[in-house]
């Protein structure tokens, strides 16, 4: 099977940049001011992947537990930083701390279970499995938490009257936030669930496509994809649930009063 793989030369990949040129042309023509971000995204994607290619080659060729751990820590740090930057000025310091703990916490629970109990990788730090699967789980958890944070912040603003009414009637902060927590969780996991609904029918996921292209049998690629999708669902759900269960408290003070209510 390995012999069937069509190797891709850099000049062939360069041909794919024609898409960017066409889109650039359309943007110019329609006066849609997105040329800068298109170019930036294209350049960043290219550089980031090339660098990651070299780093992965280096790490896979020289496997070491500390190196694997370092990559995971960097991925988690980047994910946390991305969420914090996205909500710059809208998150309280305490809510930021909750993201800092729950995003890595929830992702790692799902990730370690999948790698050590489901796949049972050997050795335990095997970077060939650890790194790409971590990337998918952590990346999706980051998206889930981002949606959760967004819904929670918005609802504590536009449903302030409902939260206040509940407090006036003697609700605990947890009961007063019940509806907001549920809605935020729903918003956070919905993209993953939609993804699962369409998987294999509407689209073939990237990881599976990649494996099949590189010569892995479709049946094995599918088993991996099912496992990874469930691990992603776990990572998104655990991290978002943890975030929401702890995060709502940061909207209240020690006297169970809504912060900034007057």
């Amino acid at each position: 099977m390995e012999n069937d793989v069509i190797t891709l030369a850099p000049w062939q990949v360069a041909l794919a940049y024609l898409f960017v040129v066409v889109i650039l042309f359309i943007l110019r023509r329609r006066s849609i001011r997105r040329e800068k971000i298109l170019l930036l995204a294209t350049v960043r994607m290219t550089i980031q992947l090339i660098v990651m290619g070299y780093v992965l080659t280096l790490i896979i060729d020289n496997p070491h537990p500390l190196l694997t751990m370092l990559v995971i820590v960097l991925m988690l740090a980047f994910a946390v930083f991305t969420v914090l930057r996205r909500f710059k000025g809208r998150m309280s310091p305490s809510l930021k701390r909750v993201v800092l703990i729950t995003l890595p916490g929830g992702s790692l629970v799902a990730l370690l279970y999948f790698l050590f109990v489901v796949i049972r990788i050997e050795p335990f730090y095997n970077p060939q499995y650890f790194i790409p699967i971590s990337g998918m789980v952590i990346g999706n958890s980051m998206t889930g938490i981002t949606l959760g944070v967004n819904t929670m912040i918005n609802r504590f603003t536009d449903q302030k009257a409902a939260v206040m009414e509940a407090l006036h009637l003697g609700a605990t902060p947890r009961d007063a936030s019940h509806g907001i927590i549920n809605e935020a969780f729903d918003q956070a996991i919905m993209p993953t669930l939609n993804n699962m609904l369409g998987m294999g029918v509407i689209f073939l996921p990237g990881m599976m496509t990649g494996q099949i292209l590189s010569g892995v049998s479709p049946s094995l690629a599918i088993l991996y994809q099912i496992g990874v999708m469930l691990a992603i669902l776990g990572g998104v759900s655990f991290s978002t649930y943890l975030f929401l269960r702890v995060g709502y408290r940061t909207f209240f003070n020690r006297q169970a009063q809504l912060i900034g209510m007057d």
Partner: protein
Amino acid sequence: MFELTDVVYRDVLRVDSMIIQAGSVTAVVGESGGGKSTLLKLLNKTLSPDKGSIRFEGEDLASRDSVTHRRRVVYLNQTPYLFPGTIRSNLQQGLFFQGRGEADQASLAAVLEEVGLDKSLDGDVKRLSGGERQRLALARVLLLGSDVLLLDEPSGALDDDSEDALLAMVVRLARERGKTLVMVTHSKAQARKHADHLFVVQRGRIEEVVSHGE
């Protein structure tokens, strides 16, 4: 029951001294934006004073558990929030928030009758008028049977006659059941008619002008 001393909340309200006795009916009147609602929220502990002390049954409010306190001292907002759903679900919601079981059909029907809301329990709250919404919110508070009722303009959306009837009903129920009632009203005449004690808030300061409860 409540004893306020040198209470300051931002530049909104200043109370040098105020005593609210258990089982009394107290009315608070004054200009809008003068701090009347703030006073009730301080008593309900959804706000805390910047300075001074509020004591409840001799205990400093700052050291009382807020949720336990609010379950005994319940506050009805001037523009109450009704949760999406039916009249029944809104009535039950208050009990849920207090960690209590559901009320039976007879209790729900009785409380609606008390507040003069002639609607089906299964009616959608979206279809209620301003006055009906206020009556439902009042019914939700009454159903809780809390020791202290803090009512912020409970009849603000009603015409004069309905307002008088509703206040008379609330005051009667409070007296019959031995509750302490503190209500904000825009009408000094209504306040004089129904309350034992009358406080006036002016430019953020509060003073007692009438006391004929004792």
